[in-house]
C-alpha cells in the first residue's frame, strides 16, 4: 500500500535526502507560494465582496484549499526528488548472520523450532533475492562468529549468544570487504548483557545497517524463570546471609511455589512464595546460614510447575566464599556501665568476632580485655600508631568524650574508616555524640547523623523502638525470618532504659530503627551509612540491656542476635591487605575470567610496587600460576586475564610481595558452568533486535514480512554505493491529493449552493 501511494519503498524515504532538481532557488518557491496565497486571498475577498454568497469562515476555507492546491503545483514545478545511496549490484557483500545458539532449538507454538523457521525464511527466496544483487556471506553466531558455506552447517547448538561480540567481528571483516548490510536472524536471547554502546557506535560510524529478523515467542505461555540470585561473595563463618532471589512467570499467577537453597544435598533454606501477575518480576529475600569456612556452592531452585515449557531455567548456582578468618573489633569505653557488659556478653559466643575492649575504670586506670591475646600492644590504651589501629576490622566508641582522643588518634580513626575500610559504631551515652563534643571534632564527619547544636541530648527516660521500612529489610535487625513478624516483635519489645537524640540522618544515611520516647516524639535510634571505603553507625542508646536482655526470658536471644548482626555488618566488608576478586564468580558458558587483586601496605595506602601472583587450582588437577599486571589507572590494583580450560570449580590464591617480603594473600573461588546460559531468557528479545536495527539504520522484520528485506536492503551507505535521485512529482499520492483538494472545494461549494 505504501509503495502504491508513494511509488518507492519506505526505506527510500527513511534513508534518502530531500532535494529540488528544478534549478531555481528554494527561496523563490517560498516567495511564489506566499504570492499565490496573497493573490488568491485577494480574489476570494473580491468574490465575497461582489457576490456576497461566500463570506466569513467559508471564504477562509476556500482560500486555504486554493492556496494548498497552488502550493502543491508550485512545489512540483521545482522538481522535488530524493537522493538516496544504493548498493552497487554485484559489487557488495551482504553478511547474513544466523543465530546458531541452543535457544534457537526452542520449539514455539506451531511446533517449529526457531532454527527451522530461520532456515525456511532464508530458503523461501530471501537468499535468492540477495544473491541476485550481492555476494552473500553466511555466518553462524553463538558465543563467537564463524563463517559457514551452507545453511545445513547450522544446528542450533551454540553454548551462548554474544550478539555484540559477533557484530564486532563482522565489522572487522568490513574493514577489508565491501559489506553493505548485515542481516541478523535471531531470537535476540543474548547472554552477554546485550549490545554495548561502543559496538553500536562503531556500526553507526561504518554506516552498516543491521536488519534483524526476529524468531520465537515474546512471552512463554507456561514458564517460571529464575532471573537472578544475589548473595554476598564473601562472608564470615556462621553468618546469617540473605539471598535475593528474582524470578518471573507466565501462566501461574496466584499459585504458590517453593524456593529452595541448597549446598550440595544439604537444604540451607526453603520458603513458599505466591506468584504475582504474569510477567511481573518478583524478588524474595531468603535467609540462610553461611555455615563453616569454605566455598559454598549455593544452588537456588524454584519448583517446576505442572506443564512448564522450560524446566531448565528454574535453578541457578552462586558461590559464597566463607572466609576462615576472625574479625577483630576494638571497643573503647570511657565509662563502666551495663551496656558495655551486656554488649560483650551478646557477642561472646560468636567465634568469628573477637571483641577487644579498653575500659576507663578510674581516672588514671584502664582495663584491657583481650581474651585471645589478639592485640598485645594495647596495654597502654587506645592505639597511638596507625598500624596498631588498622589491625582491627571494626571499632566501637562508647561513652568517651571526643577530647579523650588526641588529634592524631582522631585522624587515625578517620583514616580507619575512610582509607582502611573499617567499620565504626558510636553508642549513645552521657559522654557520647553531641554531649561528648563530637560535633566539634574531625570525627563529626564520620557520623551518619547531623548532631544537634546543644548538649544534654542523653536522656535517662524510657523509649520504645520501631523498625523503619529499611529496617524491615535489613539483616541487622532481623530476629525472626518473617519481616512482618519481625517488625511486630520489635514493636512489642520492652523499652530501652535511656536514649540520646542523635540529630537527623545525613543524606545517604539509612535509619533502620526509630526510637519512640514514652514522653512522645521520634528519633533515629539506629542509623548506618557507608563512608569512604568503610561503614559507620550510630546506636543512640546505652539502655538496650534493660529492654532486650534483662527484661527478656533467658531463652530469648534478641539482644545477642542484634549486637552480633550489627557487629558482623560492621566488619564483614572490611578488606584485608590483599583483596582478590573477579567480576563474575559463576561463568555461564564463558571461558575467560578477569582476575583482580587490590594490594595495600601496612597503612592501607595502595601498594603499586608489589609483585602479585595468582595461583590457580582447577578441576582435573589443573595447577597454574599467573603473573598479574599493575592496572595503569587504579593504583594498587593488579589484573590478569585467565582462560579456563574446562568447566568446574577453580580456587585462586593471590599472593602479593614487595622486596621479598609478603604483603598478604587472599583466596577466592569461581566456577565455570557449561550448557547453562541458553536455558535462560529464551523468549524472543524483540526490544533488543528492534533497537539494534533502528540504531544502525536497519529495520526489524518478522519472519512473515522478511521477504521485503530483499528490496529494502538496497539502500545503504556502507560498501560500494551509488547515489541515485528518485523523482517525487509523479507519486500517485500527489495526484490523489490534488484531486481531493479540488473535489473538496467543489463539494463545499455545492453544499453552500454557490456553484
Amino acid at each position, binding site marked *: 500500500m505504501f509503495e502504491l501511494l508513494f511509488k518507492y519503498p519506505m526505506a527510500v524515504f527513511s534513508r534518502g535526502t530531500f532535494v529540488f532538481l528544478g534549478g531555481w532557488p528554494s527561496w523563490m518557491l517560498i516567495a511564489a507560494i506566499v504570492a499565490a496565497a496573497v493573490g488568491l486571498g485577494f480574489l476570494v475577498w473580491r468574490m465575497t465582496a461582489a457576490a456576497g454568497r461566500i463570506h466569513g469562515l467559508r471564504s477562509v476555507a476556500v482560500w486555504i484549499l486554493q492556496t494548498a492546491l497552488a502550493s502543491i503545483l508550485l512545489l512540483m514545478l521545482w522538481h522535488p526528488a530524493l537522493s538516496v545511496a544504493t548498493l552497487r549490484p554485484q559489487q557488495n557483500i551482504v553478511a547474513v548472520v544466523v543465530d546458531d545458539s541452543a535457544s534457537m532449538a526452542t520449539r514455539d507454538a506451531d511446533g517449529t523450532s526457531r532454527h527451522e523457521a530461520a532456515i525456511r525464511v532464508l530458503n523461501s527466496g530471501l537468499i535468492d533475492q540477495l544473491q541476485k544483487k550481492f555476494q552473500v556471506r553466511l555466518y553462524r553466531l553463538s558465543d563467537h562468529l564463524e563463517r559457514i558455506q551452507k545453511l545445513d552447517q547450522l544446528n542450533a547448538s551454540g553454548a551462548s549468544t554474544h550478539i555484540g561480540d559477533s557484530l564486532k567481528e563482522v565489522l572487522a571483516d568490513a574493514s577489508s570487504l565491501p559489506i553493505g548490510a548485515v542481516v541478523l536472524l535471531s531470537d535476540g536471547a543474548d547472554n552477554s548483557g546485550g549490545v554495548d554502546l561502543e559496538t553500536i557506535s562503531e556500526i553507526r560510524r561504518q554506516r552498516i545497517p543491521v536488519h534483524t529478523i526476529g524468531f520465537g515467542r515474546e512471552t512463554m505461555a507456561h514458564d517460571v524463570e529464575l532471573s537472578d540470585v544475589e548473595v554476598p561473595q564473601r562472608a564470615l563463618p556462621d553468618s546469617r546471609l540473605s539471598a535475593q532471589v528474582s524470578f518471573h512467570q507466565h501462566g501461574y499467577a496466584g499459585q504458590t511455589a517453593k524456593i529452595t537453597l541448597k549446598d550440595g544435598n544439604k537444604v540451607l533454606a526453603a520458603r513458599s512464595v505466591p506468584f504475582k501477575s504474569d510477567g511481573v518480576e518478583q524478588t524474595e529475600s531468603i535467609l540462610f546460614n553461611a555455615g563453616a569456612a569454605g566455598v559454598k556452592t549455593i544452588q537456588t531452585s524454584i519448583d517446576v510447575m505442572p506443564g512448564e515449557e522450560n524446566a531448565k531455567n528454574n535453578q541457578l548456582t552462586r558461590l559464597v566464599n566463607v572466609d576462615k578468618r576472625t574479625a577483630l573489633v576494638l571497643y573503647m569505653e*570511657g*565509662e*563502666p*556501665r*551495663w551496656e*558495655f*557488659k*551486656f554488649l*560483650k*556478653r551478646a557477642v*561472646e559466643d560468636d567465634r568469628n568476632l573477637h571483641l577487644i*575492649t579498653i*575500659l*576507663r*575504670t*578510674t*581516672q588514671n*586506670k584502664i*582495663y584491657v*580485655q583481650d581474651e585471645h591475646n589478639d592485640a598485645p600492644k594495647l596495654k597502654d590504651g587506645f592505639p597511638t600508631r596507625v598500624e596498631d589501629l588498622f589491625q582491627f576490622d571494626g571499632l566501637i566508641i562508647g561513652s568517651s568524650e571526643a577530647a579523650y582522643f588526641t588529634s592524631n588518634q582522631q585522624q587515625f580513626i578517620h583514616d580507619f574508616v575512610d582509607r582502611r575500610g573499617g567499620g565504626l559504631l558510636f553508642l549513645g551515652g*552521657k559522654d557520647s555524640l553531641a554531649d561528648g563534643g563530637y560535633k566539634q571534632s574531625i570525627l563529626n564527619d564520620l557520623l551518619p547523623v547531623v548532631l544537634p547544636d546543644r548538649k544534654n541530648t542523653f536522656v*535517662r*527516660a*524510657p523509649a520504645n523502638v520501631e523498625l523503619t521500612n529499611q529496617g524491615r529489610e535489613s539483616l541487622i535487625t532481623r530476629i525472626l525470618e518473617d519481616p512482618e513478624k519481625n517488625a511486630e516483635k520489635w514493636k512489642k519489645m*520492652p*523499652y530501652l*532504659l535511656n536514649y540520646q537524640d542523635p540529630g537527623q540522618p545525613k543524606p545517604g544515611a539509612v535509619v533502620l530503627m526509630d526510637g519512640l520516647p*514514652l*514522653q512522645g516524639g521520634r528519633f533515629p535510634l539506629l542509623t548506618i551509612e557507608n563512608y569512604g571505603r568503610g561503614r559507620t553507625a550510630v546506636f543512640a542508646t*546505652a539502655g538496650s*540491656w*534493660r529492654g532486650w*536482655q*534483662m*527484661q*527478656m*526470658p*533467658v531463652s530469648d536471644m534478641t539482644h545477642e542476635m542484634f549486637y552480633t548482626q550489627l557487629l558482623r555488618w560492621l566488619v564483614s566488608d572490611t578488606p584485608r591487605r590483599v583483596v582478590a576478586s573477579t567480576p563474575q564468580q559463576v561463568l555461564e558458558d564463558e571461558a575467560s575470567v578477569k582476575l583482580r587483586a587490590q594490594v595495600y601496605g601496612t597503612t592501607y595506602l595502595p601498594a603499586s610496587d608489589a609483585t602479585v601472583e595468582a595461583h590457580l587450582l582447577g578441576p582435573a588437577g589443573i595447577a597454574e600460576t599467573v603473573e598479574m599486571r599493575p592496572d595503569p589507572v587504579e593504583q594498587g590494583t593488579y589484573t590478569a586475564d585467565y582462560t579456563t580450560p574446562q568447566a568446574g570449580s577453580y580456587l585462586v590464591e593471590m599472593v602479593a610481595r614487595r622486596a621479598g617480603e609478603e604483603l598478604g594473600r587472599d583466596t577466592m573461588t569461581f566456577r565455570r558452568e557449561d550448557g547453562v546460559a541458553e536455558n535462560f531468557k529464551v523468549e524472543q528479545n524483540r526490544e533488543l533486535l528492534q533497537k539494534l536495527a533502528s540504531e544502525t539504520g536497519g529495520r526489524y522484520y518478522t519472519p512473515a514480512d522478511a521477504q521485503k528485506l530483499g528490496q529494502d536492503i538496497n539502500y545503504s551507505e556502507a560498501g560500494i554505493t551509488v547515489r541515485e535521485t528518485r523523482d517525487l512529482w509523479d507519486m500517485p499520492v500527489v495526484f490523489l491529493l490534488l484531486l481531493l483538494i479540488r473535489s473538496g472545494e467543489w463539494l463545499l461549494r455545492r453544499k453552500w449552493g454557490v456553484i
Partner: protein
Amino acid sequence: MRLRSVFWLVIAGLATWGVLRAQRPFQAYSTAEEHAEYPIPEGAYETHEWTRARLAYPSILAPHGTPDGYKRWTIDYPRSDRLLLKGIKRLTRIDARSSEQVVFLDGTDDVYNWPLMYAVEVGYWNLTDDMAAQMRDYLLRGGFFMCDDFHGTIEWNNFMASMRKVFPDRPVVDIDNKDPIFHVIYDLDDRFQVAGAQYLFTGRRYEYDGYGAEWRGIYDDKGRLMVVICHNMDLGDAWEWSDDPRYPEKWASLAYRIACNYFMYDLTH
C-alpha cells in the same frame, strides 16, 4: 465528664504507670539498726548509669516469712550503702547514684532493672521457692549478686538452704587468687578477714566459728562469677564504720577495694 476527657485521663494514667514501671524510684525504708541511720543524700532521686541494689528478703526469724518480720536485710542500712556509694563515685569512673535501691523478689519485673544486687546477713535469709526461681532467672539473664556479713557454720548452712533453691546443682567454690575479680582495678592477692564493728567492743575479729575469711562464688556456664559470697567477714560494717576513727583503716580500705573490684568485675564480665 466527657468521653474524650476520660480517654485522655486513661492515656495519661497508662503513660505514668509505664514510666514508673521503667524503674521504681528511690524509696527509703526504716532500719533495724538505729546507729545505721543516715540522711538521704543529695541526688538520691536522680537517675544515674549505675545503682547498687539491696535485696530485701524474708528472714527465718520472721513469723510468716515476710520481709518486714525482723528486718535482717536492713542491717547496716542505709549508712553502709551511702558511704560506700560515695567511695565508688570517688574511686572509679562509675556514674553511681548516691542512694541505694531496695529491691524485692516479688514476682514483678522491677528487680531486672537493677543488675547488681547486694544482700547482708544472708545467714538468716529464707527465700521462698518463687523468690529463688526469680533470683535464678535474674542471675541467668545477667544479674550479679554479692552477699556479705554472715559467719560460721550455722549461718552458712542456712544461707545454702536458700541458695540451693536458686541453684540446686551449681557448686559454690573458693575464688582463685588469679581470678580477674581480684585484679580488675586493685591487685588484691593479700586479703584478710575484715571484722565487723563488734571488734570495737569485743576485740575479736571473727564471729561464731567463722575464724577465717572465705571468698567464694558461683560461676555461670561461661566461667563468669554471678554470685560472690563474702563469708566470715563484715564488709558492710567496714563501709558503715569507715568514717569512725575507732575502726581500723586497713579493714575499711580493703572493704572499699573489694567493692570496687567486685562491682567493676560485674560491669566487665
